[in-house]
């Protein structure tokens, strides 16, 4: 049994006597006797060797695919070696939240750099230190827009269904109304959006590119939203932002998104990273931690958690959000990723992803799987498919994770890590089945 308790039996005896009790159980005297657990039904503890075997056995029951052609909210991108090398440093892994700024300047500066990079990507004025993931960021964003007269949030049907689900659950808590604006041909129906923008509409959330990979007319949507006096929230893929029109350019008041593509493993869904950024008018409503620059008593530049009076530990029941933590180490990883890639590397990742996806789409169209929708897309697209089960099974047998089965067909994704050979191979396999 591993214990991690340094003190020997003898040392513990000495400490007990210093405290003035004979057994450690005496220190639990306040616990009613009848509540003390008689038998804890757990297996016996294990040595490190045995634990390793047990957990490795579980990992071995998972299938790791050589080629991944599935996205839908989690993306396999190339992660430069420096990222993991940096974030596995003991100091960064084992530190607590940087409340004692003098001994936490490394983390605070890294978060300040991360905030700067998120603003660079999105064009927005202020970023927070991150939240749990893209969907909770979206849910927090709609809450930011609520006011006494406007209690309705509108979300496009083309947003990730999981994001819509999270928003719904958060609205069950807050009492905010959530209305889904219908899709038309794989994009948000702008006419339906305008009709839904009644006087009580506080905000509209649009995902860009949307769940089906299609690029929305985000500027036009933004104009409609503002014309109705509501706030505009965009949820953008951060890799796409290397080349795509920014939320700021589209008039967004708040920009959020899932930053897992920025250096985080797929890891069966987590930990991931939600970014949140806002314009000048709204930044004080951002939930969560924010790092600011200041000076110390000697005039040296330093960094601190700031604007803390917004937060729950001070406002308690008057806080607008209960969020206490950020995903610090994940944000750190994203910062390292963006620094390693630089603007040019990120542009390359975006361009490669987009090009591979367009090549895959063209090849699939040739063998009878045309796109379900028209118009521009980024690195995901949906195709018609009459036998999705058979197609995915055939790919699976060859170590390829095909696209996600959706209504009407399959949602495919290609990123910079997929080679032309892998695409050709996948297409050949599908051709056999169809």
């Amino acid at each position, binding site marked *: 049994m591993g214990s991690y308790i340094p003190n020997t039996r003898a040392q513990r005896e000495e400490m007990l006597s210093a405290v003035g009790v004979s057994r450690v159980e005496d220190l639990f005297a306040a616990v009613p006797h009848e509540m003390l657990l008689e038998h804890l039904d757990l297996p016996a503890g294990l040595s490190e060797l045995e634990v390793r075997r047990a957990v490795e056995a579980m990992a071995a029951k998972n299938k790791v695919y050589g080629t991944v052609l599935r996205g839908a909210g989690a993306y396999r991108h190339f992660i430069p070696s420096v990222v993991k090398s940096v974030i596995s440093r003991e100091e960064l892994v084992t530190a607590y939240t940087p409340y004692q700024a003098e001994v936490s300047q490394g983390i605070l500066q890294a978060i300040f750099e991360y905030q700067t990079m998120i603003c660079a990507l999105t064009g927005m004025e202020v970023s927070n230190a991150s939240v749990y993931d893209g969907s909770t960021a979206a849910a927090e964003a709609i809450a930011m827009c609520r006011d006494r007269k406007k209690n309705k949030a509108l979300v496009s049907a083309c947003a990730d269904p999981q994001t819509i689900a999270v928003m719904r659950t958060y609205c069950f808590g807050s009492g905010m109304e959530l209305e889904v604006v219908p899709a038309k041909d794989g994009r948000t129906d702008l006419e339906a959006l305008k009709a839904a923008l009644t006087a009580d509409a506080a905000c509209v959330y649009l995902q860009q590119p949307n769940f089906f990979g299609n690029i929305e007319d985000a500027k036009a949507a933004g104009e409609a939203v503002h014309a109705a006096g509501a706030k505009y929230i965009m949820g953008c893929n951060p890799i796409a932002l290397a*080349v795509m029109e920014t939320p700021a350019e589209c008039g967004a008041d708040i920009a959020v998104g899932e930053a897992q593509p920025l250096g985080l493993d797929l890891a069966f869904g987590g930990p991931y990273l939600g970014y949140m950024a806002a314009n000048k008018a709204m930044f004080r409503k951002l939930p969560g931690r924010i790092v600011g620059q200041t000076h110390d008593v000697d005039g040296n530049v330093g960094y601190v958690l700031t604007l803390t009076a917004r937060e729950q530990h001070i406002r308690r029941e008057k806080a607008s959000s209960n969020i206490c933590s950020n995903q610090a180490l994940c944000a750190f990883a994203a910062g390292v990723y963006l620094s390693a890639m630089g603007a040019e590397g990120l542009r390359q990742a975006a361009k490669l992803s987009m090009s591979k996806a367009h090549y895959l789409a063209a090849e699939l169209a040739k063998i009878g799987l045309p796109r379900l929708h028209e118009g521009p897309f980024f690195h995901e697209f949906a195709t018609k498919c009459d036998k999705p089960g058979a197609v995915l099974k055939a790919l699976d047998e060859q170590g390829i994770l095909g696209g996600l089965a959706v209504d009407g067909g399959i949602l495919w994704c290609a990123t910079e890590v997929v080679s032309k050979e892998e695409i050709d191979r996948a297409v050949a396999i599908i051709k056999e089945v169809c």
Partner: protein
Amino acid sequence: MKLIFEKGAPGQHLSLLPACDVPEVEIVSPRAEAPELPHLSETELTRHYTALAKRVHGVNDGFYPLGSCTMKYNPKINEDMANLPGFTNIHPLQPEETVQGCLEVLHTSAKLLGEITGMDAMTFQPAAGAHGEFTGLLLIKAYHKNRGDSARTKIIVPDSAHGTNPASAVMAGFTVVNVPSGPDGCVDVEALRSAVGPDTAGLMLTNPNTVGIFDRNILEITKIIHDAGGLCYYDGANLNAVMGVVRPGDMGFDVIHLNLHKTFSTPHGGGGPGAGAVGCKALLAPFLPGPVVEKNENGYRLAVPEHSIGRVKNFCGNFGVVVRALTYVLTLGQEGIPEAAKNAVLNANYMMKRLSEKYTMAYAGPCMHEFVMDLQDLKAATGCSAMDIAKGLLDHGIHPPTMYFPLIVHEALMIEPTETESRETMDEACDVFLALWDLAHETPQALHDAPVKTPVRRLDEVGAARNPVLKYTPND
């Protein structure tokens, strides 16, 4: 130290991606200008991060007795297990047959943690303690709604509670009723009795409480709430004091959250990621966020509970954190879990005894895994506050304890050594605390000026808030 944007030169870069082997495509609606991101060589990049890491004090650097945070040792085997390619390379939307290992991790963790806490079902979807609180309160809300009882709009919270408790209650759509703590730091039972009624949805409590004392009236407290028709929520932040010794499920709690990054040794990462697992008794299981993992003769599968509140996060939660927690629980096992709790309590009492030589404890009597010191007398006598002592500790390489929490104690310092600290470390730390007490009396100015040995000295927080500078802007 320069920011990363101030280093390197345009054109410097790493060589990471190959040329495009398919026809290149341009985006239709491009951004006007490329984002301004750093431009560094790999040498400069890694040096920058090495320098940043050297300006951080982690648990692996030295004693970190932060009350209510449980800064215990983060085992390295946990990191290795979480980083197995069989976990890191798994897409969350893979077919169920191909992720039986991941589902086994979640199912087994739910079973083992359920046994430790006395809960019947568990979700790992919440990403943090506060997120777990929000989730648990929504379970309570859904439960009452399902019973057709719309009058239950209030959640009772003791005034000693962590700020997330009332904030979570409001986020879940409740109003908060604060009940006072008695002079012993525990819930004032009579005040609680007067506070309940047909509008009581539930109570949020942690036990031991935020001053490190086990509330011996706990069974009476949970009964009062249940008799009034409400449910009891356990804030698991202090579970390290009692895990394997007594279970929240046996104290009368219906729903709990665990902080895997506190009690179950997963690292804090500078502020995340953590995991706020939520466990509940059978009566709330139908409302859990979905999907949950079920097991049958064919293996594991994902299922959505019948009356699920929906989702609080994408996919299944912070899976990588759960792997670390599972590795830890398997390591400690049946004997190790209660042994950890008992030694956490022993260590805290040992430090409390030694520090009582000079410092005033906020509450008399033995503590659990943490204790609170009240420095009002020191402040009155010397002008040195809890803040000054904390800053003095920094110059000795010791991370300060939690300051100014809970709110019911003024000039509070809350100390939680955890079970993974040695007697030598604790003795050295106590020596420093006692020396600082003397220094406060002899040369208070030295503490007002502290720290002097850290990379930066005390920072102007007022300036930071009045004139926020929240990102780097290049000088013109």
